[in-house]
């Protein structure tokens, strides 16, 4: 509580700047706000926001949610088959990235990947029949996020695929993701040619069992320390996973060599992993998902527990608003494009990988990854500025993930939807860019922002939920 008299006058000046000059001239302190109407001036949202800022109930709920997130201890629990491991995954069900979307509205890469998954599952013999099957409604499409899972880009997950199982030892929840296929023609970018399907089968039949027998020799692969170390080695564990993948393979190789798996398979597995700097990405995502699922479900909390895109819409969830999604059109990423490609070739923002930013790494930990600052203006200072800006929309710092370039300050973590709407500072997301046509693959990478409208809608809904409980 600040009393007006009896302590030096210190003014937050919101509006006419000249008032601040007079205050300072007469010995008062003035802090000038760079104010603009919140929520892009939408009056209803402004009022809802005002009712939530400094709300003791929201603050308490957020403290609890972020504490759960910070306490989570994800570890690699092994590799399972999706149909057995992933909760609620039906036999004729395919999971996809982002908020819910029906076949008719899906973007090109997602449709291509679904056709690929149908072929891979053997539900249809050729692409035309697979497409017809997808259109017919015989297959249920649901978001990965409805099943404690996450998938990069199209995020397609079907029952036969092997999945990483990450277990949060603190709260006991599990999270899942597919194994990363590498670059080039891959399912997650919508490719479904025979070589793609063959690779998926190899991953199921050879890679997964080999890794499984290796993991038997590797108890308790704790993921937070591994990610923390990778942040100190130039990764932000979303768009750059070179260090984390190396740290992982360093742990895997001895375990694989000691396993009973056939040496040829071990060699193939090591070669496959070593050839893919993004191999760790899917594990990073599942680790982030497990930490955020722990934080999800605290009534009244404005902490963001999911940010995800399906190539058409960007969706978020709040810890305090259960299963509801708040969506807005997905932006097209203004990034750096490979030769011969430009923004007009790009699919709108796609994938569940923004779970990393939601967990305070990825774009939020840009300060850790000088190697990719060329995406954000080119100077190391720009990367630091991006990370520092995120501290204004987050609840805490994550002491488990520290940033050498910021004197080992923790990563900004626990996005507070109130702060996003109040400041207009939008969560920054590092991302790859998919071609809008299925199967072309990645055509660039860059930095994008979560759309304000998702947060504005969420704030209006959260305020309504508080009014209902009041």
């Amino acid at each position: 509580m600040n009393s007006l008299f009896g302590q030096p006058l210190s003014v937050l000046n919101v509006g006419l700047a000249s008032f601040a000059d007079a205050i300072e001239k007469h010995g008062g302190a003035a802090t000038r706000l760079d104010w603009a109407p919140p929520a892009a001036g939408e009056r209803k949202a402004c009022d809802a926001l005002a009712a939530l800022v400094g709300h003791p109930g929201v603050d308490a709920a957020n403290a609890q949610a972020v504490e759960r997130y910070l306490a989570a201890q994800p570890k690699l629990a092994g590799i399972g088959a999706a149909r057995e491991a992933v909760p609620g995954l039906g036999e004729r069900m395919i999971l996809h990235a982002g908020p819910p979307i029906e076949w008719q509205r899906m973007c090109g890469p997602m449709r291509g990947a679904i056709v690929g998954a149908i072929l891979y599952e053997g539900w249809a013999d050729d692409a035309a029949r697979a497409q017809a099957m997808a259109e017919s409604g015989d297959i249920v499409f649901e978001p990965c996020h409805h099943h404690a899972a996450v998938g990069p880009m199209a995020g397609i997950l079907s029952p036969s695929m092997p999945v990483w199982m990450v277990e949060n030892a603190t709260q006991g929840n599990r999270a899942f993701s597919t194994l990363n296929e590498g670059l080039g023609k891959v399912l997650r970018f919508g490719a479904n040619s025979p070589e793609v399907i063959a690779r998926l089968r190899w991953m199921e039949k050879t890679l997964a069992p080999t890794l499984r027998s290796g993991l038997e020799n590797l108890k308790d692969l704790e993921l937070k320390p591994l990610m923390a170390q990778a942040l100190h080695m130039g990764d932000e564990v979303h768009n750059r996973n070179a260090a984390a993948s190396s740290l992982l393979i360093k742990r895997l190789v001895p375990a694989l060599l000691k396993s009973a798996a056939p040496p040829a398979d071990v060699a193939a597995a090591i070669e496959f992993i070593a050839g893919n700097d993004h191999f760790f990405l899917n594990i990073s995502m599942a680790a982030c998902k497990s930490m955020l699922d722990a934080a999800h479900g605290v009534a009244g909390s404005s902490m963001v527990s999911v940010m995800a895109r399906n190539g058409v819409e960007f969706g978020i969830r709040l810890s305090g608003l259960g299963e509801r999604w708040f969506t807005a059109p997905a932006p097209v990423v203004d990034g750096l494009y490979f030769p011969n490609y430009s923004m007009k070739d790009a699919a709108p923002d796609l994938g569940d990988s923004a779970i990393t930013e939601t967990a305070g790494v990825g774009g939020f930990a840009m300060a850790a990854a000088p190697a990719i600052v060329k995406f954000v203006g080119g100077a190391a200072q720009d990367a630091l500025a991006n990370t520092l800006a995120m501290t204004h929309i987050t609840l805490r710092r994550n002491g488990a993930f520290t940033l050498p370039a910021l004197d080992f300050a923790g990563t900004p973590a626990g996005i507070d939807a109130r702060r996003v709407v109040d400041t207009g500072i939008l969560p920054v997301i590092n991302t790859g860019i998919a071609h809008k046509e299925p199967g072309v693959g990645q055509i660039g990478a860059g930095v994008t922002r979560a759309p304000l409208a998702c947060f504005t809608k969420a704030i209006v809904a959260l305020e309504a939920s508080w009014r209902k409980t009041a």
Partner: protein
Amino acid sequence: MYTHRLLPNLYRDSVSLMQLSASLGRLPGVEQAAAVMATPANLDLLRAAGLMGAALAASPNDLLVAVRGKSSASLEAALAAALAALDKPPERPAGGGAAAPPPRSLQMGLAQAPRANLALISVPGEYAAAEALKALRLGLNVMLFSDNVSLSDESSLKKYARERGLLVMGPDCGTAIVDGVPLGFANAVRRGAIGVVGASGTGMQQVTSLVHRRGGGISQAIGTGGRDLHREVGGITMLQGLERLARDPDTRVIVLISKPPAPEVAKAVLGAARRAGKPVVVNFVGAAHGAAEGKLCFARTLEEAAAAAVALSKGRKPGRAALGAAKRPAIKFKAGQRYIRGLYSGGTFCYEACALLGDAWSNAPVDASRKMKDVWKSREHTVIDLGDDVFTRGRPHPMIDHRLRNERLLAEAADPEVAVILFDVVLGYGAHPDPAAEMLPALAAAKRKNRSIAFVASVCGTDEDPQGLERQESALRAAGVLLAESNARAVMLASALIKNI
């Protein structure tokens, strides 16, 4: 003795851990300290160094802090220091880094200025209540300069603030002076023993600047906004302000200024004033005033309120200013010239003029039956508040932009029935940097149209205002304007001029 603390799954690089170990080792009572990742090799090292006993269930992913020293108190202190250092790394970007960006929200502002105690809000009215509520939620007092805030929002903001011991000045609070610091449109006045609570911005500017001109000083001037004494709000801010000034050791005399309040609110305010334990001077502008009782006295005009407050603050009895005695300068009017036209930038000045003249038409009259039908057409005696919404829509306030008043001044001068043009000039922060210069061409042009017209004005300001009282007054005097010290005196002078025409 030694002790340790294990932090599961917390990673730090070895360099920062070595630094931490060194700083822990320098703490009083600590002989040796180590912060390490709990690898088997490190655990062996610690045992060899006598920092820990035999067995410890730890994994290489855990961070271990171990200390050895003389007392358990110093060891505990060292462990606490280690936890704090691990928990709160410095925030400064390495290598200097750019200055922090300007805050975009109150919460961000508060992070930058944690000791802030007031939010001064001058955003468009539709967003103002929301910003004010946020400020209150964050524990800040509020001055709400913005207008167009609904009465129900005002009432709920003020009730919320009162419950938390916070103050909401406004909405539509043009002026305040807190600890000598001018806020919004305020005059530069010396500090002193007189505290003011006012529901009228220009009323407070008049009182504070006259107090200054008469040698007194202001402790605090708290604006309440124009509707605080409406029935729906109940004078919450005025009552809070009164209570604070009653408690404030620097305040010896209190002045209350408002347009006439709702009767039950007046009763509550006067009741509180009687209990203040200090002399209280009340000016309900334009209202019949009550009789003095105890330490409570009533002033007929803003000037009288200022004079009474200065007298009381210097231990004298307040006198009665002889308002009717304005001397009539010799001006030869033409036949037919007989009316006063008042062109005001300050709403309370206009209101006071209405009350003193008694029979003038106005867009904001004291007596509702004297309300102008068409604000663009003056008739008989007319006084106009040019700060009224109808005139400020889409253009700046007449204290900042003199164009509308200059146009109106020419129109009034062209009317053969007009004898006197009465106006105010408001100085201080927020007002135009040189109002006299803005008005001189219009005054000269009006004189050319009508050589026998008289200009009567008062300048509300002080010698410390950025515009300079003396400079403004000389310029106006040189242009033939008859100046009075206060608005009330200017009105009486205008009346005297047309008497017996």
